[in-house]
């Protein structure tokens, strides 16, 4: 339980990495790292496909990433209608790439592929918790 609190609308509540949401509550965006082969995973994983191990630790996704691509969505799927328009983005933080939304006050005109971007934690009005991006200056 716990994962139902992730994002505008979560589709599942149970995962071994539900602590991800607890870290969001503390203001931290975390990935997991395999104790055995040191690979860092985002989205976080409970299991390592390289060594088949399940020894993982939580590591922070820090610093500034590079905007890989983005799009402004003008029509939303069921359950997200109240949010349009919103900007979906993929950001490369070096060890990991992270998928998410741009903060709602960032206009798409301010965005450019390759620009520096950082992730911040956000709390939605209904108690849901997520992360979002904004240009880093």
């Amino acid at each position, binding site marked *: 339980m716990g*994962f139902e609190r*992730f*994002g*505008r*609308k*979560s*589709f*599942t509540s149970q*995962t071994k990495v539900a602590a991800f949401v607890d870290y969001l509550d503390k203001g931290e965006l975390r990935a997991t790292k395999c104790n055995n082969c040191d690979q860092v995973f*985002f*989205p976080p994983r409970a299991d390592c496909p390289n060594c088949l191990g399940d020894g993982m630790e939580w590591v922070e996704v820090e610093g500034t990433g590079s905007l*890989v*691509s*983005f*799009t*402004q*969505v*003008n*029509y*939303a*799927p*069921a*359950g*997200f*209608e109240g*949010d349009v328009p*919103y900007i*979906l*983005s*993929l950001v490369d933080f070096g060890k*990991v*790439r*992270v*998928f*998410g*939304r741009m903060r709602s006050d960032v206009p*798409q005109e301010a965005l450019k*592929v*390759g620009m520096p971007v950082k992730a911040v934690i956000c709390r939605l009005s209904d108690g849901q918790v*997520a992360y979002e991006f904004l240009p880093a200056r």
Partner: protein
Amino acid sequence: MPKDVAVIGVGQSAFVRGYPGSIRELAFEAFREAMLDASIGVKEIGASVVCSAPEYDRQRSPSGLIAEYLGLNPQPTFVIENVCASSTSGIRAAYSLIKSGLHDIVAVIGFQKMSEISSAESQERMGRGADIMWESPFGTMMPAYYAMHARAHFEKHGSTERDLAMIRVKSSKYGMLNDKAVYRGEVKLEKALNAGVVSSPLKVYDCCANADGASCVILANRDRAVELSPKPVWLLGLGAATAPMNLTGREALDGLSCARAAARQAYQMAGLQPQDIDVAEVHDCFTIAELMAYEDLGFAGPGKGVDLVRNGETYIGGKIPVNVDGGLLSKGHPIGATGGSQVRTIVLQLRGEAGAMQVPGAEFGLVHNIGGVGIYSNVIILGR
């Protein structure tokens, strides 16, 4: 060049905005046409494979239902699902059921009926064909994913919204000739460029429309194909590959790695090169998908797909005619039926039966069918 398994019958329902019947009746329309095309009876069919993406209609486990309605009991049947690539994965499975010796003749039936749910509901279901834990909670939908690919392609290669619009202009030209297409209207360049933005930079005419429809492809082993069919069309090469479902696992967004891998396998198996292909059906769920396909399939070098567009090389008469049946953009995209419909188009082309859409003398054809946003890819090369 392996000639072990051939297509001996193809069928397709009209692709329509709202089919007024049930899924079983829809599937029957394609099946009837394929059976008449193959001139065989239901007892000749050794097994069926039913291809459909779930949750667009309420029937669960449709293979049992469809097999019953088509008269295909007691033969085995199962559902194969790869979202938009379901029916080419079904054909891959059917190929191996035949080549392995388990069955002589297999029918692959693809269908989708999406019109009993709203568009927002169908977008929500499509969104759940991505990573529901880490992507769907942000409100993802198919146009958005492909839009991100479009922007990446624009940035890296200098392609433009105009290039994409030109692809749609081509689709509509051929959709107007295809009486089974859902969109029969013309789309002029200005109309495409001035249309509303769905997910930037993709606009309305960059996106295929949902459609209801069904397709059926009947495959046979060498002996039965030669015996039964005056014009068997052989499966010469099959390639299949995947990429991580979540975009975070992709190296780059200006092409689809799974399509490149599948194409490599298919060319190798067939012993052919991109320049040997006379006609292709590629998965143009969005205009950008067709542009990327040109490059992923080797019809153009990396980033050079725009040259084919700007020089009209993918029209009939050009270097490599692509989607000259209207493609997903104009013919329509009933998810589970799409791959089978693509194969049908190529089969008709190779038999010389494509009418106004015929590419003269086509000898080798290629089908490129993608599931999800570059999650699954099947490439199939067919020949006379």
